[in-house]
């Protein structure tokens, strides 16, 4: 695998680092380790990092006057052996109620494929997904690893309001709406878990590199958990991952 990234100026205060055009968990690992190493050595210069599927963008505090020099410094950081960096990653188990009350597009999806509702649910909840990055909305996880049987085109007309917590499929991706918003993905269920909560020390529990598994729950369980979450009594089941 060609892992050597390329560097481009992005305006006067940012550098875009790109890997090959692919959604690849190895690239993600390489990117996250590189990010850690840059954070260690250039933290005084950088205000923020933006991770994409195959890109890492560094936002600088000040204008970058000499891109060539800065890029050379980054390249030399990349040459270092940072494979030893191990950021702890977690597997999070997210309860999802796939009841038709929330999975309002499930029936239509069975007409567009050979799958039954039960098969869609079991395929969706069997996989372990990788969190590539968070974008679009605060707490919106871009997940990789959707079963190709579950690729469904986005809806031709987006809904003006998709409820918070909706679990959905759009093209080759699956995700959870962290807040109610307009959206064109097919809705298959709903989770009572908050994916973004500014009152928490960590507003979003997940980070790039973590894993997500969806666990089916009944409508009754959904309402119980919804109450526990509202009363701050629920903690998401998580497992520390070793690689």
């Amino acid at each position: 695998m060609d892992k050597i990234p390329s560097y481009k100026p992005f305006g006067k205060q940012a550098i875009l680092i790109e890997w090959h055009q692919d959604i690849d968990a190895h690239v993600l690992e390489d990117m996250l380790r590189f990010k850690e190493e840059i954070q260690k050595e250039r933290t005084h210069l950088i205000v923020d990092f933006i991770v994409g599927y195959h890109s890492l963008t560094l936002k600088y505090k000040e204008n970058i006057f000499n891109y060539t020099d800065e890029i050379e410094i980054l390249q030399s950081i990349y040459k270092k052996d940072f494979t030893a960096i191990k950021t702890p990653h977690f597997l999070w188990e997210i309860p999802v109620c796939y009841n038709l009350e929330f999975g309002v597009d499930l029936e239509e999806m069975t007409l567009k494929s050979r799958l039954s509702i039960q098969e869609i649910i079991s395929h969706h909840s069997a996989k372990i997904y990788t969190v590539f990055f968070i974008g679009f909305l605060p707490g919106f996880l871009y997940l990789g690893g959707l079963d190709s049987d579950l690729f469904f085109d986005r809806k031709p007309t987006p809904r003006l309001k998709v409820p918070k917590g909706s679990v959905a499929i759009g093209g080759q991706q699956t995700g959870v709406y962290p807040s109610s918003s307009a959206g064109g993905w097919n809705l298959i269920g709903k989770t009572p878990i908050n994916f973004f909560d500014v009152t928490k020390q960590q507003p979003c529990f997940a980070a790039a590199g973590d894993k997500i598994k969806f666990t089916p729950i009944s409508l009754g369980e959904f309402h119980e958990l919804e109450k526990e979450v509202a009363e701050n009594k629920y903690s998401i089941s998580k497992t520390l991952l070793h690689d």
Partner: protein
Amino acid sequence: MIKVLKAGFYTSIQDKGREGYASIGVPVSGAMDTYSSDLANRILNNVETDAVLEIAFGFCAFEFLSETIICISGGHFSPKINGVPISLQTRIRVYKKDVLTFGHNSFGARCYLAVKNGFLTAQVLKSRSFFQNITLQSLLSNGDVLPIGVFAASTDPSNTSVKIVEDHFESQKIACYNGPEFDALEAFQKEALVKQVFTISNDNNRMGYRLNEVIENELPSILTSAVLPGTVQLTPSGELIVLMRDCQVTGGYPRVLQLTNTAINQLAQKKTNDTFQFVLK
């Protein structure tokens, strides 16, 4: 404290925004035109990070519940204290029960109201900038009472007045750099980007400005990657979207241009049907 008598169409608290939270998908936000908001704070000897009110489209009213000094900068919305017109870029002493109103617009799209030591609404993720699902409010409402910084009567009351760069409101030239996908464009498309006079559509807000003129293209969409305030996206239908301060942290449309910070500030003072040209640096 300041009471909101009439909130207007789009009035929000803004400071320098939130840096450092892109990893959880949080936009930068902050004043759309930082040139004007910084100026208002500087005239009051405030610190740069003090929060100001950003008023778009005027027609609002505020009552002071305590005395302070204020400064208004940015677009001109006929500001008056108790019915008497006041100047922009000027320190103005206000007293309890004074009423400040903003009316019709003579230039610019947004104005900033700074008060001594800033507005003290809740800080969330290190910023007071309003943003949906982050701060409790995303817009001001009638009847809101806004806490403000302490004002000591000994503070120099002289009416310092500062001249502004007129170009800031009048310039038709929006300076930018090549965006990351600029080189994916054909020569004639690159030429169209800088030759075309663009018009701001009525779909323009703190997240972004859509433009009326199109650049036909066959560019493939990109794998979702970073976008920044000032990024110009080109959609498959040829529409251009200039992202502004409240934009998402990532996007999937090709990024053809990147505005300078000065250009973002200048565009923030333009409104529906205003025209401009991109100028490559």
